[in-house]
């Protein structure tokens, strides 16, 4: 297997000159963060979307505590609009690692009156109260997220330990200074911390790591045939969850997804990249960020991400 071969080569190489490649340095930094949180927080949880970033996080958590099991649960917000392929991959990871999975469902939250059933509010927006409710209900004190600083400029300012008040809100103007690798996990009752262990990774690093480790990610990241239609300059998947509007025409194209989100908001790109190496080549020459190209939720305004983050988004 390719992943294992890489691993062997690395150990021999680093020992000759006491030098760690940048990817190994990133891995070591992330593992350090996972261990700090496991040691210092009462009840951490890993927020898992099923996307490539959260899979990389699972892999890092696996490595951080091996051969012990990951000492915290994983939490998924079920929007009811997730790609079935993503859920299948999730289930295989959960089974292999033997971790406890907590699912917070938007449908249940609506049914139980925790959040209003407003058809006009996007499911993406409803993830926020659903997530915050799950964190509060389960008493989670730290929630790992797969956010990266290269994704978006509000994220470029975010700390590795990102403090949330009792309303789950982020106060970007009042962040705690974060120096060296000394993280401050102090909390008051009802507050929690968002933890971003892969803050310093870029999209390319994530792909290189998936390739090197030889780990499973959802099939939709690889080139496949799909019935799609064009909306707002993006290619959207045909699904009963996302009815066609006037003038929208479905056609079959060769596509892949660069991110895994809500099926009604996440667009795909035309691509023939069917292996990790081909994806890496594609990412290396891509001229649009993964979010700008394929995420309807980030397109509303220049500060769309900052506003959602303040409310308690990932």
């Amino acid at each position: 297997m390719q992943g294992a071969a890489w691993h062997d080569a690395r150990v021999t190489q680093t020992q000759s000159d006491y030098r760690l490649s940048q990817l190994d340095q990133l891995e070591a930094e992330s593992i350090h963060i996972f261990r700090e949180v496991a040691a210092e927080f009462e009840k951490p949880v890993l927020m898992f979307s099923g996307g490539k970033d959260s899979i990389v996080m699972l892999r890092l958590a696996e490595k951080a505590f091996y051969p012990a099991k990951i000492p915290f649960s994983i939490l998924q917000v079920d929007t009811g609009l997730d790609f079935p392929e993503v859920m299948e991959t999730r289930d295989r990871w959960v089974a292999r690692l033997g971790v406890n999975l907590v699912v917070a469902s938007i449908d249940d939250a609506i049914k139980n009156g925790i959040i209003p059933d407003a058809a006009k509010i996007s499911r993406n927006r409803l993830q926020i109260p659903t997530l915050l409710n799950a964190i509060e209900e389960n008493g989670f004190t730290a929630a790992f997220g797969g956010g990266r600083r290269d994704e978006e400029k509000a994220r470029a300012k975010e700390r590795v330990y990102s403090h949330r008040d009792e309303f789950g809100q982020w106060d970007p103007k009042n962040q705690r200074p974060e120096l060296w690798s000394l993280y401050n996990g102090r909390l008051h009752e009802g507050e929690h911390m968002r933890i971003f262990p892969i803050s310093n990774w870029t999209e390319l690093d994530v792909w290189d790591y998936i390739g090197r480790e030889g780990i499973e990610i959802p099939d939709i990241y690889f080139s496949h045939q799909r019935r799609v239609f064009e909306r707002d300059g993006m290619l959207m998947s045909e699904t009963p969850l996302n009815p066609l509007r006037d003038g929208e025409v479905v056609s079959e194209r060769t596509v892949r997804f660069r991110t895994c989100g809500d099926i009604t908001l996440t667009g795909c790109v035309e691509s023939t990249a069917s292996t990790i190496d081909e994806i890496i080549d594609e990412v290396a020459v891509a001229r649009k960020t993964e979010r700008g190209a394929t995420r309807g939720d980030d397109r509303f305004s220049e500060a769309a991400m900052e506003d959602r983050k303040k409310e308690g988004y990932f």
Partner: protein
Amino acid sequence: MATTDMDLLRFATAGSVDDGKSTLIGRLLLDSKAIFEDQLEAVEATSVSKGYDYTDLALLTDGLRSEREQGITIDVAYRYFATPSRKFIIADTPGHVQYTRNMVTGASTADLGLVLVDARQGLTEQSRRHAVILSLLRVPHLVLAVNKMDLVDFDQEVFDKIHREFTQFATKLNVPDLEVIPISALQGDNVVNRSEHMPWYSGPTLMHHLEHVHVASDRDLIDARFPVQFVVRPKSDEFHDYRGYAGQVAGGILKPGDEIVVLPSGMTSKISKIDLFDKEITEAFPPMSVTVHLEDDVDVSRGDMIARVNNAPTPSQDIDAMVCWMTNTPLQPRQKLAIKHTTRTGRALVKDIAYRLDVNTLHRDQETKELGVNEIGRVTLRTTVPLLVDPYSKNRTTGSFILIDEATGVTVGAGMING
């Protein structure tokens, strides 16, 4: 072009918009293709809507709404780009004195500090202050980029004068490696491509220097330091007796067979093996995250430090350090704070503030008995637990600590241990 075997350089930039810092970063990102079309489109659209007749690249780096509204950088922003041989992480920090704490934050993890001056202005109080902070934080490599050379007709005299003045000033600082480069960020001279306008300059371009500066030897590979983070005990049938000490190597090289001491208890043992995930390795060095096993069943827990028997830090409850104060309520003697040093936490009592360092003039003000926000001074502390410290000048990991306000939980101070 796999990133798997690339090197990593973390550098901090300091300077204000007026020095052309954002233009320079924008150029580094543009020329290394780290800016994407949609990011550039967003910035162009905003520039047009604000009525600018140029694309304001500062909009790329100023990520928060309040920063864009005020047109200033407040907080540290992290930027990423790569060339075929290296990945770069830029900690883009604000230049103004009221944000010194943010600059300290950005510099704390930097291998290299980049100070920008405007060739027309020459050295200013601000550029001196930036150099002082970078040197206090022991950033091993310093670059002074003399920008806007196009506005002084690429005049060698102007550059030489600034070069001389700065080199003289730097003798008062701890600057092991200094490079002074004449550039024009706006026109690209000596940024990525060699300038045709300055044939008198024979040194490297900025990008060439960033790509080639030697950072591997900045690490301490002599003094083994392993702060224990987490005890791995699987409690499963397959790994019934497994007991490993997980952590990130902070200094030196650890090998199976090494005779070690566990601090602060002083118990000794030998390393039996070192795990990196599911593999045993023969050596561990900084900054690897590994799991260490000992031959004897000694008591080891989080906050302890594993070091070599004949080369270990001295446990101490009296700490003498340079402290950067980061909150509005001043630091005063008798104050009690929480302290975090490596993986060890305790409480600290402020015994004395010996002096406040004027970061503009290096003058030591012994009259002041408190430190205000963004001020740096020499402080002595008494801690409830012994800390396992090295001088910051020897090891930036075991020589640093943070101070936390116990009531608010906020990080209020950053300390660098003297010695």
